């Protein structure tokens, strides 16, 4: 009987650790948002930036220097929040893909969704062709091609019988196909177009705006609660198709729904940012190493880790060579990879 108490207390401790981890990440994120908002040519303190944020939210209650409020709300805050949402979404998409495909290398990038988006953007840049015109030509193409890749993976997996290995193989095949198309477009494009395509693949949050932020947050607000609601099914699928089926999960239908949701989240983010790799791959790993793989906590926690990583990288990208802004995709790799390797080498059970 005494041992039973020990077991239940042990599980309670595990739950507490997870809650603390998520709480800590949230606190860190709030602090980092405050710091990130101060970065730029106009100088003001962290306290002033918080005040400016609050003043915008509750105009009567808080007041901040007018200049700070204008700069924060018109130029900086949407970029900072966009980085938070993009990091959150990419990490959640990566967690879902790694879980249901049971492949530690699965991410929107290894599955061809991102390379398809690059192809879509390249077609817009080099050939000027796209489904939607005007300002949204590149974005629209990237989004559509990303979803097209997801559908193609689904189609191939469906034909061959949906299993995690089929999906991974189909994803890799798709990745190579789209990379080849992008290379061809780069080959035929002018020097200027080539530059634009290459720059797009670096990935950055430079072009964020409030409307774009609204679109991304709306998609996240619609999809993430659903993923959380089905966390037990994700847990079961992460153990294997047969285990999940034995536990009452409709495997095929669930795999499709989860893949499509993860692809949609990825597509809506990278069509605005270009390819920001690494976050979707690494944030879930870091989180699993810290608090284990229960999707009820893995999803929010890896989302927060992703948000912190991307916002941190973007802050470094903006300040290290200021006023020059480095593409954030480069910084995420430079900062994140050594950190990830360090964790990986020190934790056997990753």
């Amino acid at each position, binding site marked *: 009987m005494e041992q039973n108490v020990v077991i239940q207390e042990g599980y309670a401790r595990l739950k507490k650790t997870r809650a603390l981890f998520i709480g800590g990440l949230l606190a860190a994120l709030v602090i980092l948002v405050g710091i990130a908002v101060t970065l730029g040519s106009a100088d003001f303190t962290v306290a002033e930036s918080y005040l400016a944020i609050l003043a915008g939210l509750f105009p009567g209650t808080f007041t901040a220097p007018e200049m700070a409020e204008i700069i924060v709300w018109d130029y900086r805050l949407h970029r900072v929040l966009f980085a938070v949402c993009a990091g959150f979404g990419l990490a959640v998409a990566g967690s879902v893909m790694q879980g249901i495909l049971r492949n530690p290398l699965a991410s929107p990038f290894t599955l061809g969704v991102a390379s398809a988006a690059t192809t879509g953007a390249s077609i817009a840049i080099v050939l000027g062709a796209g489904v939607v015109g005007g300002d949204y030509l590149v974005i629209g193409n990237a989004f559509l091609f990303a979803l097209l890749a997801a559908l193609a993976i689904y189609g191939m997996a469906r034909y061959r019988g949906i299993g995690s290995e089929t999906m991974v193989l189909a994803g890799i095949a798709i990745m190579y196909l789209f990379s080849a198309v992008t290379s061809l477009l780069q080959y035929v494009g002018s020097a200027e177009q080539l530059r634009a395509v290459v720059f797009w693949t670096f990935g950055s949050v430079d072009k964020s705006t409030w409307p774009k932020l609204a679109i991304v947050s709306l998609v996240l607000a619609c999809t993430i609660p659903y993923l959380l609601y089905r966390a037990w099914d994700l847990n079961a699928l992460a153990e294997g198709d047969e285990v999940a089926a034995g536990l009452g999960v*409709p495997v095929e239908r669930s795999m499709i729904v989860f893949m499509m949701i993860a692809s949609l989240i990825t597509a809506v983010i990278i069509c605005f940012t270009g390819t920001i790799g690494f976050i979707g791959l690494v944030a879930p790993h870091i989180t699993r190493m810290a608090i284990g793989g229960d999707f009820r906590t893995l999803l929010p926690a890896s989302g927060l880790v992703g948000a912190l990583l991307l916002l941190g990288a973007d802050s470094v990208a903006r300040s290290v060579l200021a006023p020059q802004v480095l593409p954030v995709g480069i910084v995420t790799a430079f900062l994140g990879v050594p950190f990830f390797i360090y964790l990986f080498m020190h934790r056997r059970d990753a």
Partner: protein
Amino acid sequence: MPRLSVEDLSFSYRDRRVLHGVTFSVDAGEVLGLVGPNGCGKTTLIRCVDGMLTPDGGRVMLDKRAIRTMHRREVAQAMAYVPQSAGNRTAATVFETVLMGRRPYLNWTVNRTDEEKVVAALDALDLGDLALRKVGELSGGERQRVMIARALVQETGAILLDEPTSNLDVCHQMGVMEVLRGLAEEKGLSIVIALHDLNLAATYCHRLMVMKAGAVYGYGAPDEVLTEEMLRAVYGIEAVVKRDLAAPYMVPVRSGSLRGGA
């Protein structure tokens, strides 16, 4: 009335016939061993029984209900399935892995009763000390016990296991079979186990069903089924079946080495 009955089941992968005319039943408290050479259809049969594969013909009845008419969640509340080499990929703790067996009943939160059921199952399989260890760190035998514990917290009347003893040494094989036989008899569970080791099957199962090329070759008590003639017809091997212990056991013989009076 048996708890689980399978009548005239047939199944094909595209145009290749894998199962035909399979009929058997399992009572409460009974362990049925499915034996037969590789590729004879044991795994396919188990998947059809659990409703993961849809048979071309025949029916599977569980507690007087046809599996085909049941929702997946209902099936999971009535019948647990332990696939071959399950748990190899698990990074979670033993406690959480077993807790997942409550999935057919859980919505989102885990209440005290669920936790207590997990603790009881861990207790039943002597896994209490390992509860907070990661499944990946355990030995093959311990891992298999975790999978059985998970099937137990599903609180089903029937459990299907696909080669639960493969990759285990003889001590752990016996340990796992001992647990399963004990559970069947104490809790009145109906257990179906696909096995390769005929001696293990004859020792621990109440009845054996021998399959050959997707059909039932023999079905009955180990004494009736495990014969030299069956081994020759189904496996194409020469062996001697001994009957000097409580259960029959077979000793394979190298061709040409059978001596008179052996």
